[in-house]
């Protein structure tokens, strides 16, 4: 493998090789500032004073939580500096799941691209496919048929539900409501079965393609979806009985992992974390894409910015998504499920046997791919975790010149040191869980 070294000083002048949380004695003020005061707009001196509290450093110790800790959702490693049970400083260390998907994306055609990106946020694969396809479509300037738009919306909202059910399961398990785990997975599984019926796969669907979706909805899909929509509300009420009003649950989550609106905006947090601080920012409402401006739903907003708010927001977002899904079922337009543009979408199988032209298009699409006009574009969607962005630079060829995904989990993880500071180790578990990071998206 050929490697490129930067200039020598580049390696020498950075503190490359120290990803870990350093000992308090070795931590310069500017690093303390990063961990504590940057968001609060403190000076270095103030930040240093903040860290002065524990005088002797043998009273504190640095321990690793993860990467194998079950409550870290995969391979998140959080280094904690503890004094007794109290968390003084913390630092997330990531990269254990890095597979170079952005590099891979530069080597795949636009047709193959969704297969790659769908594996990033594996709890919400449709959103990855959607944001990638929206970016490519914007570069080409494709106008989608209404059925494709509404199908995408239907699948995305079902996916938001399944992702939030997964959160309810893991969040419950982390905090100790073990039965919640079974319920959350049960509900999610029902949604995955519908996904299997529609797309053929339970995860990593590669169903949303450039120019529409891969196939039409199967017969009887309305019944499956409606049966689910009827079954879920009483179960969500059960969740409320089990968790929302329960004193132990409230003790464990309220006032834990608190973050203010200013901190959240400064740190780039989006999604339920930002909304839990009272900022009503939901891209579906504020900068609508697909047909979200035509459906009726509410943006759920919290007020305290704690773990309980984030739990409640996600629970109620399931209810809002169910509203949207019901509208999708009722108003699903008829017509094409993908653009009839021979240069972008492959011809149906039957046409290949009878039309030379269709055969040529099919061959060209799957060997060479389609060319996308030169330019750059940044598209965003509201994934269950926040603003999912895709930046594509095209050089006019059949492969993206640069494909970058802005993973909301990756950015949201920066809020962790602020949430954990001053809390207990047990609260750290609740706070990490409430950020709901998906490591596949963090590391990409």
């Amino acid at each position, binding site marked *: 493998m050929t490697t490129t070294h930067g200039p020598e000083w580049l390696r020498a002048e950075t*503190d490359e090789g120290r*990803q870990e949380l350093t000992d308090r004695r070795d931590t310069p003020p500017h690093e303390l500032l990063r961990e504590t005061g940057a968001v609060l707009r403190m000076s270095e001196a103030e930040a240093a004073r903040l860290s002065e509290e524990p005088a002797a450093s043998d009273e504190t110790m640095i321990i690793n939580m993860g990467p194998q800790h079950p409550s870290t959702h995969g391979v998140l490693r959080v280094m904690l500096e503890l004094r007794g049970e109290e968390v003084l400083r913390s630092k997330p260390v*990531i990269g254990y799941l890095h597979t170079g998907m952005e590099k891979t994306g530069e080597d795949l055609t636009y047709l193959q691209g969704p297969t790659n990106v769908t594996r990033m946020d594996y709890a919400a694969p449709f959103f990855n496919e959607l944001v990638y396809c929206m970016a490519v479509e914007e570069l080409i300037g494709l106008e989608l048929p209404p059925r494709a738009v509404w199908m995408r919306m239907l699948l995305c909202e079902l996916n938001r539900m399944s992702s939030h059910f997964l959160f309810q399961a893991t969040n419950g398990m982390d905090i100790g409501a073990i039965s919640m785990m079974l319920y959350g997975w049960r509900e999610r599984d029902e949604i995955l079965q519908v996904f299997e019926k529609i797309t053929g796969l339970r995860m990593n669907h590669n169903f949303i393609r450039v120019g529409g979706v891969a196939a039409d909805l199967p017969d009887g899909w309305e019944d499956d979806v409606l049966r689910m929509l009827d079954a879920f509300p009483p179960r969500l009420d059960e969740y409320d009985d089990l968790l929302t009003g329960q004193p132990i649950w409230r003790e464990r989550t309220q006032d834990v992992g608190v973050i203010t609106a200013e901190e959240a905006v400064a740190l*780039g947090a989006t999604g339920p974390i930002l909304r839990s601080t009272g*900022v009503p920012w939901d891209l579906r409402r504020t900068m609508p894409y697909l047909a979200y401006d035509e459906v009726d739903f509410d943006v759920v907003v919290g007020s305290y910015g704690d773990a309980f708010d984030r739990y409640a927001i996600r629970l109620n977002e399931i209810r809002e998504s169910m509203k949207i899904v019901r509208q999708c079922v009722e108003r699903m337009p008829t017509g094409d499920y993908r653009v009839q543009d021979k240069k972008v979408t492959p011809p149906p199988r039957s046409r290949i046997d009878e039309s030379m032209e269709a055969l040529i298009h099919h061959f060209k699409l799957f060997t060479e791919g389609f060319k996308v006009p030169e*330019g750059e*574009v940044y598209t965003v969607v509201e994934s269950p975790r926040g603003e999912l962005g895709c930046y594509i*630079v095209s050089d006019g060829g059949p492969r993206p010149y640069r494909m970058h995904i802005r993973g909301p989990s990756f950015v949201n993880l*920066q809020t962790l040191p602020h949430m954990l500071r001053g809390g207990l180790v047990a609260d750290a578990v609740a706070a990490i869980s409430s950020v709901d990071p998906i490591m596949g998206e963090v590391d990409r």
Partner: protein
Amino acid sequence: MTDADPPAEHESVPEENVLPMRHGVPVTEERGVAVLFPTRERYVEVVRALYDEGFRFCADLTAVDYLTHPGRALPEGVEPERFEVVVQLLSHEDRTRCRVRVQIPHDDPVIPTLWPVHPGTEAPEREAFDMFGIRFDGHPDLTRILMPEDWDGYPLRKDYAVGRIPVQFKGVPPPR
């Protein structure tokens, strides 16, 4: 950007000025989003001015290596360089986005950090450093974030080959 005559959409543009400018740097419009092209020296200043204008939220920061695609369209007066740092900003009040693109030469890949203005760029800047070897001057903790600590090279550079198992045939194209 490819438009021959980009629309001058900002009221601060004087009539006689042919080249649209915003905060003293060239600006174009790409699919409804304003794209600013500051120099490295004016970069932080421009982002700070945009912050005061309402762009309080830094959505994304990434880099692009234009090694094999040098002929991209840039507004007049912007010298194309190998690297480009791309910042996506968002204004919650106006519900608008804008983009900042900064050119960075290959032999001196240094740019001031945005961290004092937007603390949320801490991790994305580390990622850009990790993947492209662009040094962010003033960053509090510039270490590799996704790759292992002892990794050699910067994987998303265009002259960094994707891993390939050597094939034992004659005439196989060399790994790119």
